[in-house]
């Protein structure tokens, strides 16, 4: 069974190696500053005890004021996983250093994030759109893409046959 390398343990390990690092940790994941993502990625990959040689996935979540880039890592020899996140400071023109020099597997995934979320990856060898054509207006996975006038949200607020406990007004 794969073991999750918990955020607290990983944060302690990184604090030894990078004393000046400002990171926060939760039970399940750690959050590192975007500027340090490449050296941290390199350390996570090369450290014999961590050995995160396999990058499972890179993806991003739009939290309206900022973006969260999520890296899922796997060690094949130790059979443990870890989740590393980094938060962008900007929402209009977010830039995060690329991890392609560390894991080639990020190459297409970072292009996908750029295409759909609009996060630019600095140092990526081929930062172009991948699914949509050049000149497509906007980045469709952003939460503010195609927002309706007067603050309306598309879709239903409550779905049919859903049982929701009654809320006080």
């Amino acid at each position, binding site marked *: 069974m794969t073991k999750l390398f918990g955020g607290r343990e990983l944060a302690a390990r990184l604090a030894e190696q990078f004393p000046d690092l400002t990171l926060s940790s939760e039970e399940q994941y750690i959050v590192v500053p975007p500027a340090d993502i490449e050296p941290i990625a390199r350390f996570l990959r090369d450290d014999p005890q961590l050995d995160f040689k*396999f990058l*499972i996935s890179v993806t991003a979540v739009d939290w309206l004021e900022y973006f969260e880039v999520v890296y899922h890592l796997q060690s094949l020899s130790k059979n443990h996983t870890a989740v590393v996140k980094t938060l962008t400071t900007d929402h209009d023109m977010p830039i995060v250093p690329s991890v392609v020099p560390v894991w*080639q*597997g990020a190459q*297409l995934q970072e292009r996908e994030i750029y295409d759909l979320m609009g996060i630019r990856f600095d140092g990526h060898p081929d930062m172009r759109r991948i*699914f949509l054509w050049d000149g497509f207006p906007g980045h469709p*996975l952003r939460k503010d893409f195609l927002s309706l006038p007067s603050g309306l949200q598309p879709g239903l607020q409550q779905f049919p046959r859903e049982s929701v406990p009654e809320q006080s007004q």
Partner: protein
Amino acid sequence: MPAEPYIVNIGPQHPSTHGVFRMRVALDGERIVDADMVMGYLHRSMEKLAEERTYTQNIPFTDRTDYLSAMNSNLAYCLAVEKLAGVEVPERAQVLRVIFAELQRIASHSMALGTFVNDCGAWQTPLMYMFRERERILDLFEMTCGARLTVNYMRIGGVSFDVPDEFMPAALSIVGELPQRIAEYEEMLLENEIILARARGIGVLTADQAINASASGPILRASGVAWDIRKADPYAAYNQFEFDIPVGTHGDCYDRFAVRMAEVRQSVRILEQALDVLPEGPVNVGLPLAMRPEPGEAYARIESPRGELGFYLVSDGGPAPYRFHIRSPSYINLTAMKDLVVGLSVADSIVILGSIDIVVGEVDR
């Protein structure tokens, strides 16, 4: 005088690209000097659509990503929602999930093997043999859930229907016949002159390259890495069954082909055990159609026929996922494609693409 590279578009409408996928290659004489993967022709923006629908309403979308192994896509998504919402699945449903996932793996690998042989130049006959097996497995799906391709069978907390009475005899007869059929295919294909000439030593991916490029599934195993999520991180009822992980030695197209062939045998082994121990009991916990999981996130993954298929879900406490991300193996396995084809000829690139076994519905989503 230096000649300019000659640009050739392979696809998007070309049978060898297995769907609407385009490879733009630059040629110097016969040799490929540069390659560019052009995709998005089948992009339906499923991740955005899913943010507007309930967790249950999203299950049919997962059928339409990897349409050749819809059971596996269903399963991965349901596992992610169950992890997010903390749902326990009954024992019978767990074993049924294994049975249908493995039947689907055989069907999907039959297709992969058949089309790969097609790409090598053994035109159509082996593919038709493979379709014979696949057809009977799809009949099993039809009698259980009414659909053959886009099955929509798994549910959050179990499966949608119990198997009908006629299922067990039919399944046992297929599983009983398969070892002999596989022996036939191995005899016909593994030492086949056409396949040896076209696939051996072509598209070699070393173990380190494969790991660094996040390749998974048969691609990774053909490079000699014994990594299978069914063993490493067991889900459903896989920890109850015995099977081996076939690995290759050279990491070339032939090894990928041979690994898939060996995996079909292992799937039959799992099926024999699973059909034998299938316990009685409920097949579903009967959750309401709409649910609101606590705010949080979950990543669940399975070993789909094409590799590690994962779903990353983020909930904000609402009835629909706040973020729905598919870690699709077909897409990520294409990362190494450019390095594999440069230096070879166009004909070799077709064989390499066939050995990676992409499903464009899953590449573009």
